[in-house]
């Protein structure tokens, strides 16, 4: 019984971690202030 509880706890933590990571996701920030270029840049 205790083994079952331990396994369930491990599973629950895995789900919680992955769900939290995916919910938080990645921040997109704001639109870049740089313009669409009409001159040839010297370097990337």
């Amino acid at each position, binding site marked *: 019984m205790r083994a079952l509880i331990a396994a369930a*706890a491990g599973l629950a933590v*895995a789900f919680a971690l*992955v769900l939290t990571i995916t919910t938080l996701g*990645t921040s*997109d920030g704001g639109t*870049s202030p740089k313009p*669409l*270029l009409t001159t040839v*840049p010297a*370097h990337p």
Partner: protein
Amino acid sequence: MRRKASLILLALAVFLTALAPLLRWYAFPRLAKIPANQYQDMVLEAKGATLLDYGTMKARKVSKVTIVQTLKGDVAAARRIERTAGRDVVVWDGLSYVQGPDGKMVSEIPERYIFDAHSQEPVHATGEMVDGDPVSRTGIEFKWPFLTEKRDYEYFDAQTRTTNPIHYKGTRTFRGVKVYYFEQTIPWTKVAFPKKMPVQGITAESVAKTGTTRWYTTVRKFWVEPVTGAPVYGEEIHKEELRGGTLLGGRAKVTAFAGDVKMREDYVRHTVALVKHNRTLVLLMTSYLPWGSLVLGVLVLGLSLWLEARARRPADPGPARAEEPEPVSA
């Protein structure tokens, strides 16, 4: 004590083992996406190209034609479209600015490309356009989906505003990176004049009135890194002609542009380095972390079972007591 440790290890083993498929098939498809605020520029060059001189209406060889391509993510527009589309969206405002050897503008074509941030599938919303003309794209443009497959894709051509297959032509190695090579041929097709012409006073409408038409053909080549779906190199054998009408002074056709357009060397190096870095990040989610977690989970499970087995083993009998010698009576 041993039983407690084995239970903790069992929980850890289940955690690690469950993490492997969850990362690969739940987290990765949701986390792998093009950021809405992406900004990137690219310089391509056509050395020894043929270019039309609009002053004399004659084609001439020039040392170099440069194409500056910029893509800029509009975050506010993406958020607005996401509310109705119900999925993560990227809105790219692009500009292809073509410059002649004298530094003067040859053409500039803006476009707005709206697509799903995860799958790169086009999303249709107001504002989607090429050179001011509303379009409804199908297929991909600029980038392939994550985990690109060895198959043909549908690729949108901004000049003709049509979608055609781009064929998978094999796996190659480009500067140490495994890539899939794709090729698309657009046959001679009548296309619209750019809205912004290189000579002041000449507009697309005024040229159209002369009866002269613009035709275009290209062979588009992409070397795509399959994990990220990002092209590390691109080339185009691009030709444009003006045909018929009064503008050509009796000639049937004149070359407007012909050249082999290639990415500038510093941009190739930069792109390869960037793609190598992003490839590691994607592999972390699809391979390194899931496999590492699974292997570690199995090892920890083995350790847990071993500890459990030792805890259940019956206690060793103590050292045999030495029998005291019985007194011997005479």
